[in-house]
């Protein structure tokens, strides 16, 4: 452990997964392309300056208005996007596509470890709370050899439960003293819970004056941020947010997508703020398994597509820029004549963050993404 470093000096990475295939074309909107408006008569977002229009980013792309809470980060140069990014695997199955992105090996069904778990192995500082995931189920991305701490989501996440009573845990300690998977998980659970509860308890008392955190994603994001701000042992964080499978009534400035983005935008802003000084050394990566069709369907929604946008937020991010080669939206430029093409492999984006931000060297990188060599260098940091 590098105990000499100040707690805010530790480099941290937080990954947020938007499950359901979020519509990147209505998140970072190519408003300068006439084809965008032709293909989306109902759900397109208006140009900047118009009523309910997008928030201009660079004269070509604009941000969905529900993401207004993130504009200050863009203006400060802390927020970047990589457009037309994604997996080279053409699967339009949510579950296959998520699996590939989480194990980090598109097309491979056999490997079961997630890339974040392999990353832990590479950068390990060997603490029981090196990685924290929000929720009581295990996301594939953190599956593997290295122990991962998790924290229940929701308002009651840091309320005391029976196992917190010393008499109760003492009894269960006798039951779970072995080396089997269950005992190990139990043991990790005890250590992690004690550490996280102590952190949360102090933090909540100090910072909130008793006011409860908001419910849902915003509250969970804030809780994770406070934990990471408080405890330098936590280097990696993960959260998933569902509800992006918008086949129907996706909406434009209002509707399902806008609601989801509203909550995500507020959550990210709260996360950044709650990290405090640690934000300077944090990268927040937002991704989804695939994008959606360029054309809207007959129900004001979109179907499963291919290329998408990745978001990178953090204190040292070279933001204020939309990265990636933009393939265009003319029919001939689309993937299978229907979707935004993928011009940047998602592993190129992550590799750059790992290398520049977490100082992961090439050998370690080849363990995180086996049999993969980054095809392009994107200098995000």
């Amino acid at each position: 452990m590098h105990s000499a470093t100040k707690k805010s000096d530790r480099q941290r990475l937080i990954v947020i997964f938007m499950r359901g295939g979020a519509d990147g074309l209505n998140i970072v909107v190519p408003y300068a392309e006439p084809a965008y408006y032709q293909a989306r008569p109902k759900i397109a977002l208006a140009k900047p300056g118009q009523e309910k229009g997008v928030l201009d980013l660079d004269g070509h792309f604009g941000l969905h208005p529900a993401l207004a809470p993130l504009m200050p980060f863009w203006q400060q140069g802390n927020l970047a996007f990589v457009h037309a990014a994604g997996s080279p695997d053409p699967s339009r199955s949510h579950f296959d596509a998520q699996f590939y992105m989480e194990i980090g090996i598109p097309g491979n069904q056999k490997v079961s470890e997630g890339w974040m778990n392999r990353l832990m192995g590479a950068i390990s500082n060997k603490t029981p709370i090196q990685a924290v995931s929000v929720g009581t189920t295990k996301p594939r991305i953190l599956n593997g050899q290295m122990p991962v701490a998790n924290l229940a989501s929701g308002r009651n996440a840091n309320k005391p439960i029976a196992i917190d009573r010393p008499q109760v845990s003492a009894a269960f300690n006798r039951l779970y003293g072995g080396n089997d998977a269950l005992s190990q998980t139990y043991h990790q659970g005890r250590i992690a819970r004690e550490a996280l509860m102590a952190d949360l308890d102090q933090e909540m008392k100090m910072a909130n004056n008793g006011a409860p955190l908001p419910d849902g994603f915003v509250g969970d994001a804030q809780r994770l941020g406070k934990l990471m701000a408080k405890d330098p042992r936590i280097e990696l964080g993960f959260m998933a947010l569902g509800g992006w499978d918008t086949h129907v009534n996706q909406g434009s400035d209002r509707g399902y997508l806008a609601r989801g983005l509203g909550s995500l935008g507020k959550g990210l802003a709260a996360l950044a703020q709650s990290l405090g000084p640690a934000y300077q050394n944090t990268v927040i990566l937002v991704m989804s398994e695939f994008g959606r069709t360029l054309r809207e369907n007959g129900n004001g929604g979109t179907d499963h597509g291919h290329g998408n946008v990745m978001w990178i937020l953090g204190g040292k991010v070279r933001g204020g820029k939309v990265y990636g080669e933009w393939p265009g939206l003319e029919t001939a430029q689309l993937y299978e004549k229907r979707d935004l093409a993928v011009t940047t492999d998602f592993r190129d984006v992550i590799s750059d963050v790992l290398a520049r931000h977490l100082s992961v060297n090439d050998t370690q990188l080849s363990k995180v993404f086996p049999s993969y060599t980054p095809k392009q260098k994107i200098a995000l940091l």
Partner: protein
Amino acid sequence: MTVKPRYLVLLLFILLAGSDPIYAANKPVDPKILHVINRLSFGAKPGEIQKVESVGVERYIKAQLSPNSISEPPSLTRQLSQLETLNLNTVEIRNYLKAPPQATPEEKKALQKRGGKILQEAVKARLLRATSSNRQLQEVMVDFWYNHFNVYSGKGNARYWVGAYEQEAIRPYALGRFRDLLGATAHHPAMLVYLDNSQNKASRRPGATSRVNENYARELMELHTLGADGGYTQQDVIALARIFTGWGIAGSGQQTNGKSVFYFDPRFHDPNDKVFLGRTIKASGQAEGEQALDILAKSPATAHHISYQLAQYFVSDRPPASLVDRLAQRFRNTDGNIRAVLETLFQSPEFWDKKYFNAKFKTPFQYTVSAVRATGLEVNNTIPLSRNLEQLEMPVYGCRTPDGYKNTQDVWLNPEAINRRLSFATALGSGRLPLIGTANNSPKNKSINRVQPLDATQLINTLGNSLSPKTQSAIAASPPELKAALVLGSPEFMRR
């Protein structure tokens, strides 16, 4: 709870015997009996092992495969009959929620409450049946098939219909023919809403296909039938979506059969022939969808996909290929007869291979229900159970994604999840969970029903004295008020 005289004697024996382990009075039970109970039911309740011992494993399986031959506890029947909305079909639900013309704000509020009641009663019914029904395999299969054909209650009107969906589309066919199950789910308004097929409409202009919604068509093939590697293409997804255009829900002026609000509207159906999985489907309205379901139900890929999932649920997270192949063959030979496939499964050498005994890690639902069953408590308040399931991220009807909840260890075995399971076990074992509390329980009554820990010896006997020596000694070394909690929180009890 009352302590039966037999256990009093046992307790006395333990007290007198001093340091003797508390389980010593009874011999361990045949592991085969424990295995069959663990897999065909949500776990042993008091007396269950003795029952299976007396009828024999084969007859137990046979009876469970014919649930109608098994009588239900009168208390369960009574409790279910008190649920006003449980057996409403979707037409009746629509009427139940119909606002009177010019409804007052009070009337509207009351109506909203009625709406909430439908979902609450459905959740309660599922938990009551899972914990108390004698037709346990039926309940286990409802759990399996509901997940397989998952509908999320949080999507639009689905909250009013998920209960009816279980009663009408899942439950009656849980041990029946796969094609019937597939058809019932395809027609049900809950599924039509959840996977957007009710909005899958062809344009009125001939030849146009732009109003097609692919959502149901894709998940129908990927999840419900062929499987992701089932050999279909994007073109098949589009063709199947076109085949299902016009399937939807009756508007106010549209006639239905009185049992379901399902409605096929030919005006929104794509009137062209379609090529689906290499076959030409002649334009024939609703019949095209039925033909597509026939093709999917008969496909060898479907037989394999369903067999894999059954083997994974009943045998192992990584089921042996030999078993999957045998089940798939039986599936094909019997035209998707689920009972027959299960019969093959329960007779297979793989099912009886000792290495799979107690090898499946319980899902939160299985864990919660099995713990309550083991106590023998007659539950009438299911709220503490549904709360626990929410905390463990497995609420009833609450899976957002169409693939349903997983049943494998890699998803559910997590540090904080174990903390929460053990806390639930502690609350239940120490008698603090108000499962038999009712709404009209006055504080006075509560003081009479003092918190009393459950009887650990009784629990151990109920579970067939199957705890390891290590677990036994940990229990023996713990204070009396925690012994029952330790049984329910033991490593052995985390698995089935």
